[in-house]
């Protein structure tokens, strides 16, 4: 009871990285709270799935293995999580801020009347005094859900002290996946799915499904050349592709550049896109709102090319080149070609 839960996403019979990352975070939260880490694995033909999650420090795996649980559809998964939570009363539940996590999480929160914070960038445990509905109380060991908020350079800490579970979604790549102990062993509980999911819940049929590998290698690229609204046009982004090609890197973008239609949305870096940690991050025409910075601040070397010397991103850059991207980027290409022998 009152443990930390992670809902694990499963593609075929493989637990997704985003879920393993959350298990690593969940383990730390459980340690701080002195409770157990449990997870839910629901799909079809997943005998032995526990082997994938135990190394991350899972104390108990709830396995739901039945026809109809893969591919994911909303109602059966919502139903089993909601019914399991009635028994288990978790204090925290973490999910990926993925299509599945964002489809499922809100239903759990509506059914349990609990708070859900989307796209958190940090999660920590804290105790504090707070006044809710005019009543001031001391709340111990609460989950602080931290996320950049609308409008730019502000970060909000969200708490839900009066409701359980405390729920949060986190994007892939935000938390670090860390094996705790390759030989870690927990308990496996194989549930009778029919007890948790009435037959009538299998209402949506998946007729056709295509999953492709990511079109770009942004997540693991050692060098990222990223463009912002300051690139000015789709055509100017071609320079970034050329520079990235020369450097054997990938092209990323800020949300403003994506919204302006300069480049495809799967290249978005930031709170609502990818989180990257390349060796070198070259930010071209990116002003550096907190939503963007939260997705790249752990990069090794940050180079900012911007004609605004006051651009916020310059504060975290190792090198600032004051100049127009149209002028500087071609020079970077030219001198890289000239000097790289």
């Amino acid at each position, binding site marked *: 009871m009152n443990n930390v839960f992670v809902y694990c996403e499963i593609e075929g019979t493989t637990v997704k990285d985003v879920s393993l990352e959350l298990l690593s975070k969940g383990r730390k939260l459980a340690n701080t709270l002195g409770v157990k880490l449990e997870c839910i694995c629901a799909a079809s033909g997943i005998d032995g799935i526990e082997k994938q999650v135990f190394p991350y420090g899972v104390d108990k795996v709830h396995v739901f293995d039945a026809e109809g649980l893969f591919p994911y559809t909303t109602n059966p998964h919502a139903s089993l999580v909601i019914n399991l939570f009635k028994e288990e009363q978790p204090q925290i539940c973490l999910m990926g801020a993925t299509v599945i996590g964002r*489809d499922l999480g809100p239903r759990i929160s509506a059914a349990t009347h609990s708070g859900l914070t989307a796209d958190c960038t940090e999660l920590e445990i804290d105790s504090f005094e707070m006044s809710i509905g005019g009543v001031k109380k001391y709340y111990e060991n609460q989950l602080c859900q931290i996320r950049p908020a609308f409008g730019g350079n502000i970060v909000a*800490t969200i708490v839900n002290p009066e409701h359980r579970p405390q729920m949060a979604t986190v994007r892939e790549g935000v938390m670090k996946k860390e094996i705790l102990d390759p030989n870690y062993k927990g308990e496996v509980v194989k549930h009778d799915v029919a007890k948790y999911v009435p037959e009538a819940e299998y*209402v949506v049929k998946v007729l056709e499904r295509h999953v492709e590998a990511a079109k770009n290698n942004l997540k693991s690229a050692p060098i990222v050349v990223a463009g912002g609204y300051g690139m000015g046009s789709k055509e100017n982004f071609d320079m970034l592709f050329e520079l990235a090609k020369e450097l054997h890197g990938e092209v990323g973008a800020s949300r403003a550049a994506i919204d302006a239609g300069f480049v495809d949305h799967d290249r978005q870096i930031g709170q609502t896109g990818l989180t990257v940690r390349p060796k070198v991050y070259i930010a071209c025409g990116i002003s550096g709102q907190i939503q963007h910075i939260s997705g790249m601040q752990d990069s090794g070397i940050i180079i900012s090319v911007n004609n605004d010397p006051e651009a916020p991103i310059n504060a975290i850059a190792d090198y600032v080149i004051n100049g127009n991207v149209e002028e500087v980027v071609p020079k970077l290409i030219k001198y890289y070609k000239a000097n790289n022998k």
Partner: protein
Amino acid sequence: MSLKIVVLAKQVPDTRNVGPDAMTEQGTINRAALPAVFNPEDLNALEQALRLKDQFPGSTISVVTMGLPKSAEVIREALYRGADEGFVVTDRVLGGADTLATSYTLAQAIKKVGNYDIILCGRQAIDGDTAQVGPQIAQKLGLTQVTYAEEILSLDESARKVVIRRLIDGGVETVEAPLPLVVTVNGSAAPCRPRNAKRVMKYKKATAVAERAPEQAEAYAALIAVKPFMDIPQWGAADIEADPNQIGKAGSPTNVKAVKNIVFKAKESRTLTASDADVEGLIKELLEEKIIG
């Protein structure tokens, strides 16, 4: 057969093209610099509704919005583009709502609209990006849902089933779901058709009560008596039989504990110019230290 379609729309500050004046010097949002707009993905949802209406003549589209009195603007916009009616849910006691209290309120409003076959809304609103309200409404109404929808491919009236193409992580899938249903529509779906000039003429003076100056009440009453469509119905918490404990701040499990301005700790950075010497010097340095190359 005709369908009863409900579209949910939200008026949001336009966060897409945030300029340097979007923040005040104190680090708060400069709302004056951000115009209020129709949440973009709600327009994609409206287009899917209009396509259903094209396909099933006699269908009706009811648009529901919750917000400040001026959010009646999105109802007018929807009427211009082909919606049949719209409702503004506005009340002081609804203020401070998080996604859960918002979804409760909208679910109550949808119940008041009644007899719905399909409820469409944008996947998420650009002022929060949470994507929670659609699925929460579905849960509260006891309906299933299809999120991240790109296109309603077909609807079988007699079997009461709909086939939808939706995005999933790293791909797409086609699903078949039963009516009634909540569908959240992704921004990659077809854009909304433009305003119809005749409809603009018809509805441009339609208002909700909260938008009218008190001294004009009589004039409006006379107008609406002749042209009932000039009134955009406005509902408060009591009209939708909302439980006071489930709306506004009281109905919101989440609390904002702290909001802080982020000041990045400046690194020891080197500032260069765009000159050839500076750029070449940087490239050489990065190559020598094997940072690139």
